[in-house]
């Protein structure tokens, strides 16, 4: 065998080779982990250093006397608290709205027969091909005409529908056996009670996966919130972070602390819902 050509064939030589190979593998794993984590690590370290020590040479890579005050300053004086609150409001409202509209439409496409159903579904699918960039100018004008500029409705209402959501729920609901619908009908269930008491409980994983997908998409929005917000009272955390990086340069530790604060909620979410997150992120890849 080509791979076994070199090295000793004695049991001791073979064991030594196995150990050596294992050490090499761990070294590679650790090195790559270092590359991936290094930017975040440096940011965290710099957040804990006194402002004037940031950028000192040789660089400080471990804060012996961490100063946690930068986080409090970032949260209050640099408005991260307000930005995070705004993002939470916008994201939760958007996800809730998308869940409601998508579950309802997905249910109708899976369980209710009505004229022009095929056309209606095709229209929902067609939205998947229209990116934000193709609609942004008229939507900006619409929002202005409605008097919503620099307000929460401007950040939420344009996104209450989700083509992917409609599609995912329709696919999932079609997997519910039709006999269940017949049985539920005999028990006097209307569509609404069948949906809430049978269909949704059966499809909790899909709801979770889509919910997380929608959450991440909404939380990470950048271009739209940038153009429709103007003051800190409605700015989302992504735009707030941009604001922080251009205005707070005399307090670098605060910028770094703010960056960590901005990333923290999603990190927590990642660790709490790792499995659902992976399923949500790969939903587009594995579903046909």
């Amino acid at each position, binding site marked *: *065998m*080509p*791979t076994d050509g070199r090295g000793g064939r004695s049991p001791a030589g073979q064991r030594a080779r196995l150990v050596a190979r294992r050490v090499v593998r761990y070294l590679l*794993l650790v090195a*790559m*982990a270092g590359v*991936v*984590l290094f*930017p*975040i690590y*440096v*940011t965290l370290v710099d957040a804990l250093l006194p402002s004037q020590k940031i*950028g000192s*040479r040789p*660089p400080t890579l471990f804060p012996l006397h961490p100063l946690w005050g930068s986080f409090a300053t970032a949260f209050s004086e640099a408005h991260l608290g307000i930005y995070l609150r705004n993002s939470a409001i916008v994201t939760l409202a958007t996800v809730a709205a998308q869940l*409601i*509209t*998508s579950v*309802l*439409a997905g249910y*109708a496409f899976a369980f*209710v*027969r*009505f004229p022009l159903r095929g056309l209606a579904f095709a*229209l*929902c699918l067609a*939205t998947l*091909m*229209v990116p934000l*960039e*193709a*609609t942004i*100018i*008229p*939507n900006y004008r*619409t929002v202005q005409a409605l008097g919503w500029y620099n307000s929460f409705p401007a950040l939420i209402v344009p996104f*209450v*529908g989700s083509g992917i959501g*409609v599609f995912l729920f329709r696919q999932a609901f079609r997997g519910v056996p039709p006999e269940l619908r017949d049985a539920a009908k005999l028990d006097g269930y209307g569509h609404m009670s069948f949906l809430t008491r049978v269909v949704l409980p059966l499809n909790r994983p899909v709801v979770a996966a889509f919910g997380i997908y929608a959450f991440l998409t909404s*939380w*990470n929005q*950048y*271009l739209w919130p*940038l*153009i429709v917000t103007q003051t800190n009272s409605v700015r989302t955390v*992504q*735009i707030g972070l*941009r604001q922080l990086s251009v205005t707070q340069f005399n307090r670098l530790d605060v*910028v*770094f602390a703010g*960056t960590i604060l901005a*990333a923290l909620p*999603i990190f927590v979410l*990642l*660790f709490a819902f*790792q499995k659902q997150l*992976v399923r949500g*992120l*790969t939903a587009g*890849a594995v579903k046909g």
Partner: protein
Amino acid sequence: MREAGAGYLFVLPALVAFGVFVFYPLVKTAYLGFFTSPPAPNLPAHYVGVSQYSSVLRSSEFRDDLWRSVQFVLYTVPAGIVLGIALAVLANQRLAGIRIFRTVYSSTVATSTAVASVVFLTLLNPQIGLLNYWLGRQGGAGLLQSSSLALPAVSVVTIWQNIGFTFILMSAALQAVPDDLLEAARVDGASSWFRFRHVTIPLLSPMIFFAVIVGTIAGFQAFGQIDILTQGGPNNHTLVLIYDLYQQAFQYDNFGSAAVLSVSLFVILLVLTFAQFWYFQRRVFYAN
């Protein structure tokens, strides 16, 4: 009929949202391309027909925008996928503690574009940036201020931010590779590189294709990193199509030519999306 009524009622919220914020603005964007923007606000726009389309699309500015967007895709997509596969292979071993490494490698999905960009904005800062220091450029011109290196630097930030997502995709595909297939190749005397090249890679090819399309679409839509790191500079060297669109529309009030750019971006993304749909229709798995 009551049944049909319920169906319409259920799909109505989604369809109304799509009508107002997707279909109407899509048509309106194409329509706005027929008008040049007035020299001052509140003056009527001037109808010029298709001439604005042809003049914008034939301009050297548009060609340069497009080329920079293509370059950005070429810098980010192949490198990102190679890195994602490397990490997925590395983390696909049966070793103690491997779960920690898997979590670390997927961790950058928790960073938004704004977080990643602000982190690297400081790492690349000419005075205090660690990366600048390690590259021996301390005090000299920053990478982001260099006409030849700004776009590659923005690309590196993007690759780093996407590592987690690509890793998750490639890991999911890798775990679906049947062990006995690799075992059979091993028994047949195939070297580990041969097994990787002729068994693993072909089995990963569907996911690689998916990642290429998704990465290319995301590459054309990449906005936040440009906005935070370079604002299209220095000297337009990072002025990609979408950033030009943003500046024309929301900084220069040039809605007419911005609409043309919007339509062109829409067509590009539409072709890419169709490529993706076509692929999932055919599902040519395990080719090669």
